[in-house]
């Protein structure tokens, strides 16, 4: 019996050591993973001018074509809002690419992650399809692939040609700021937000120029200037997610 007691005590010691070691490794890994996006050379952002948006939905279609999105899914949804001064006001909603993105925080396998240019990316090969990110996203920006998207994409070729692979059944998907266009454009020496070939498809297709895209680190970029010159807001700002999509309201608040 006394032997058992010694064993138990020794084991308690061992357990304590084990817990300490486990806690140590956790502390080390947690310094690696950050709870907000790393700041790289570029900080991409989008500005949507609600006074210019006419709700045509071209952005949605171009997005569906360039990213080969299922017609049942809209990465970029155009919402119709209230009437302001007898005019319809629209609120297009891409992914907000939050600086502190709830989806990145909750993903159990780091399938959602930050690029150092601020884009919130999805690794569709790693995702297990638990849908916690959908639960956590305050902007309904994620759509799950309940079915396999096979067959023709009705938006192709009228609105563009697919530039990325179709996502498999069983993973959620969302807007990526057309990272493929940005990356290819930069490789070709183009400037995202200025050159069409380096800018998100929705920005390029917008007939009224309601969308601006560019680098917040560049004070001369169209987004930096627009945000400097106009009052703007972001969606559900009280949550502290720090979205990278800014809106210029349809009726600018009178300057005090």
């Amino acid at each position, binding site marked *: 019996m006394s032997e*058992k007691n010694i*064993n*138990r005590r020794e*084991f*308690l010691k061992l*357990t304590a050591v084990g*817990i300490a070691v486990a806690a140590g490794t*956790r502390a080390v*890994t*947690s310094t690696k*993973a950050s*709870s907000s996006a790393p700041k790289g050379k570029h900080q991409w952002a989008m500005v949507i001018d609600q006074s210019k948006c006419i709700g045509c939905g071209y952005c949605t279609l171009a997005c569906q074509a360039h990213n080969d999105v299922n017609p049942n899914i809209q990465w970029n949804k155009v*919402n119709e*809002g*209230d009437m302001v001064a007898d005019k319809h006001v629209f*609120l297009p*909603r891409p992914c907000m690419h939050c600086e502190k993105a*709830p989806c*990145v*925080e*909750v*993903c*159990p*396998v*780091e*399938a959602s992650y930050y690029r150092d240019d601020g884009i919130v990316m999805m690794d569709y090969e*790693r*995702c*297990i*399809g*638990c*849908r*916690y990110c*959908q*639960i*956590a*996203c*305050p*902007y*309904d920006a*994620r*759509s*799950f*692939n*309940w*079915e*396999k998207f096979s067959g023709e994409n009705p938006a192709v070729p009228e609105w563009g040609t697919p530039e990325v692979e179709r996502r*498999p*059944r*069983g*993973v*959620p998907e969302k807007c990526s700021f057309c990272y493929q266009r940005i990356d290819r454009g930069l490789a070709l020496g183009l400037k995202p937000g200025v050159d069409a070939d380096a800018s998100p498809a929705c920005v390029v297709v917008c007939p009224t120029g309601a969308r601006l895209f560019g680098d917040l680190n560049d004070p001369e970029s169209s987004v930096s200037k627009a945000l400097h010159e106009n009052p703007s*807001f972001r*969606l*559900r700002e009280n*949550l*502290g997610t720090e979205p990278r999509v800014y809106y210029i309201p349809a009726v600018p608040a009178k300057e005090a």
Partner: protein
Amino acid sequence: MFKKLRSKLVITPWAIWLGLMGIILLSGAIAGIMVFWKGLGITNLTDRVPWGLWITIDLSSIALGAGAFSLCAGVYLFGLKRYQPIARTATFVGLIGYTMATLALILDIGKPERFWHSMVYWNTHSLLWEVTMCVILYLTVLVFEAMPILANLEWLRKHLPKIASLMERVHHYAPILAIIGLGLSSLHQSSLGATYGVIKARPFWFKPEMSVLFMFSAIVGGISLTLFATMLSSRLTNKARINDALIERVAQIVGYLLIGYFYFRAWDTLATTYTYDPGRSEGLHFLTKGPFAFNFWIVEMLLGMIVPMILLLYKPTRMNRFWRMVALVLVAAGVVAFRWDTNITGQLVLISYIPGAAITYTSYQPSWIEILTGAAIIAYGFTAFSLGVKYLRVVDHSLIEEDHAKVKVEVVEPVTI
């Protein structure tokens, strides 16, 4: 030859039970294959309500498996040795509960073949990662804790006595396993609540109390289910031998715990009214006055807490086996209702990202596929427990620790010859 076969095919209540469970398991297996084949599109889950019936089954079976860690901690760490036979049953119930949860999760994730990703790719920020790791590790602990129970299998004792005795010897490490189990369970039982509690997009969930509530209700519900299963099996079969005095004492503890659970749940709900937060107040309204009012007031509060609290704390009803059983099963059902209400209410109240837009509501009804597979998961739990009672002496209060040691010697001896 036919006579022999016919004599074997006597319709006993046991055969009917197994047949019934078999039918449910079979239909669930077919439905499950459909899910893997056709994908989650055949469920009623949507982008608005991505977590439905399966998640509730998952949460409930983990919660009701919590009797294992709480009773093992009580017996092996806090010196309540005499309750060891109940802890034994609880361990088996826990093992069943956690495997049920694993089954539900495998169905629920969109890419079941990638289930192992959570072990390889770590996001230490994610509550769900922590829960997954803890559940996997704790399931391993439960397997070890259940080794001495599984060693009771007659076939194993006869044909592989060496392995059986080895499995029995794991019992000596019970205190250590109880420590690990307590740690892992405390982590993931509360983190399951935090899984909801950290979601700032949904104010109805976004509060620190979620962890406390999940933990507390799991302990209360888990112990209750174990006691109920123990008592029920003693009524149905002579394979189960119980010491009613033990159960009665633990049931009294459950009664006291219920006061705490009731206080927390009531306080948590009422405190929601202190401030107005879009989405949170609507959620409360939805729960207390809307479509979930019956679930909340009657199933959770009245039948799940107040009635069993009285039945278990009032001595005459507690001493009465029938009323005690009623009380215990009500507690377990109340905890399941709490998980369902919490999970669904938080999703049905839709908070728009459009500035100034009103709160809207959606609805969710599980599809037949979800119900059939869900029923099969529950049927698996029932079947496993009844098999355990029949063949593994899972409910046997005459089998105490000393007895255990004796059995071990008997088995070891023939091996050394």
